[in-house]
């Protein structure tokens, strides 16, 4: 048997699955977004009509789409820096020669990452309960006012952001920790001999050396955070007053609650384009900054 044929036989199962159940649907998603596929078309394909960019046009005129996009951006813009700061802080602490029991702390800090979003989101609902929640109880014990975390439209998204930071920071922490460990110790040695303070060492050695890792981790986190869905679905169900409806939440409701699959595909595509543009700009900025 020649190697060409063997290779394709080995590739066939994976390529078949990926092609049929991922790449084909992605291409079809664009076509779908140009139609008015809805409940009637689901029952009988003869009701399907081609509407060109009609779905996109309607979406751009729907306040809910813009607010969903806005909530998603809010989540990304506040959530990503907070997550990265938590990850970097934890990685620096773990990497410190002064730290004891590193293995234990690393496992403890990483544990939330492997948990099931739905299960821990349910915990969050009770911890942030206005009346009986431990968080408000602690606030009151400190003499602060309790907050209507999940009932106040201004606080619901911050609560979800706190959840996401808690759940996800351990992932990047591990990657950043590996990045920190790869920095040659003699750089710090030399800096210490020159009398550089810890802050200066961090600013002039750690950050520049960590820059490629930070860039990669940051962009992947941005892309991940644009896909906000399970958290608002479980914690707030999009409320209160639709203040936590994210773009994907809108896509889900539009597609699988109201069965407007054409319009939902347009939401998915617009989100994808926005996400692509944002990560592209970030990547370019990071490259330019790196050269300067």
């Amino acid at each position, binding site marked *: 048997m020649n190697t060409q044929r063997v290779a394709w036989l080995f590739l066939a199962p994976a390529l078949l699955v990926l092609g049929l*159940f991922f790449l084909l649907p992605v291409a079809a*998603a664009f076509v779908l977004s140009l139609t008015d596929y809805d409940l009637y078309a689901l029952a009988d394909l003869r009701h399907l009509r081609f509407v060109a960019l009609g779905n996109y046009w309607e979406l751009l005129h729907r306040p809910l789409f813009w607010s969903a996009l806005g909530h998603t951006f809010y989540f990304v813009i506040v959530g990503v820096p907070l997550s990265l700061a938590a990850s970097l802080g*934890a990685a620096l602490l773990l990497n410190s020669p002064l730290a004891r029991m590193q293995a234990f702390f690393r496992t403890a800090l990483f544990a939330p990452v492997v*948990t*099931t979003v739905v299960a821990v989101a349910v915990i969050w609902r009770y911890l942030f309960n206005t009346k009986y929640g431990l968080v408000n109880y602690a606030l009151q014990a400190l003499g602060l006012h309790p907050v209507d975390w999940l009932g106040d439209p201004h606080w619901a998204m911050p609560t979800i952001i706190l959840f996401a930071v808690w759940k996800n920071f351990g992932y990047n922490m591990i*990657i950043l920790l590996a990045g920190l460990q790869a920095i040659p110790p003699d750089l710090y040695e030399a800096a210490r001999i020159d009398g550089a303070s810890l802050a200066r060492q961090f600013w002039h050695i750690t950050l520049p050396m960590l820059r490629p890792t930070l860039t990669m981790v940051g962009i992947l986190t941005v892309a991940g955070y644009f896909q906000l869905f399970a958290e608002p679905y479980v914690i707030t169900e999009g409320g209160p007053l639709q203040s936590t409806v994210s773009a*994907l939440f809108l896509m889900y409701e539009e597609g699988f609650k109201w069965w407007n699959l054409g319009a939902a595909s347009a939401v998915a595509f617009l989100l994808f384009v926005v996400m692509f543009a944002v990560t592209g700009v970030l990547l370019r900025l990071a490259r330019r900054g790196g050269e300067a």
Partner: protein
Amino acid sequence: MSPRLAKALVNGLLLGGAAVALFPLLWMLSVSFMAPGTASALPPPLLPGQATLENYRTLFVRVGMGRYLANSLLVSSAITLLALACNMMAGYAFAKLRFGGRERLFQALVGALVIPAQVAMLPLFLLLKYIGLVNSFAGVIVPAMATIFGVYLVRQYARGIPDELLEAARIDGAGEWRIFAGIVLPLLKPIMVTLAIFTFLAAWNDFMWPLIVLTGQEHYTLPIGLASLAREHAQDTELMMAGSVVTVLPVLGLFLAMQRYYLQGLLLGSVKG
């Protein structure tokens, strides 16, 4: 800053961070043993006054959590086995078998990594509806049988296998399949374990796709069952926490047991390009 103060500060902060990370999980465990209705009190109790297994009994006897647990085990195991087979074969082919357009095809696949899975979900739902897989376990399993990430991971690892080893086996007249099963797979064992844990955890924790494709309660996996329970039993804190324990404990246990492999894979997968 004196060295002793610095040491206390670093370890104090680590302790605080670990407490924040673990507290919700420990609280969940504690509340799951509280008698129904006792968690919603002021001040909020931290430990059960009298530990009881009643919530777990309700969960398995009345609410049907056992079914969800069995479904989750079945779906996640099937995905892990099938995805492992597809990804190992493809990853090995990309790393070690020569064929026309290999690099370009691989680049194209890696490029497709940026496409979020959700873009495919709506047409995929229609596709599965027309072939009759909506509301079946196959609807969850089949699309997950291969992942670009898995192929990528295996390929990176398999590149380390020396070509001479494979050539020698070919000269000895071993068939390609024998070479793969007898020589390559044993060498790929570490990445196989890593990929298996990754796949199992991802399948177990997956939410959005199963939510879409599993429309009937009898097919619910744990996260879907738990989410639907959370809407019906919003007031039953203790019951919900028991449900969360049942959902989280298997994956947390698996992670703790196989931590080394998991973290290795995480680092391997993150070093792109």
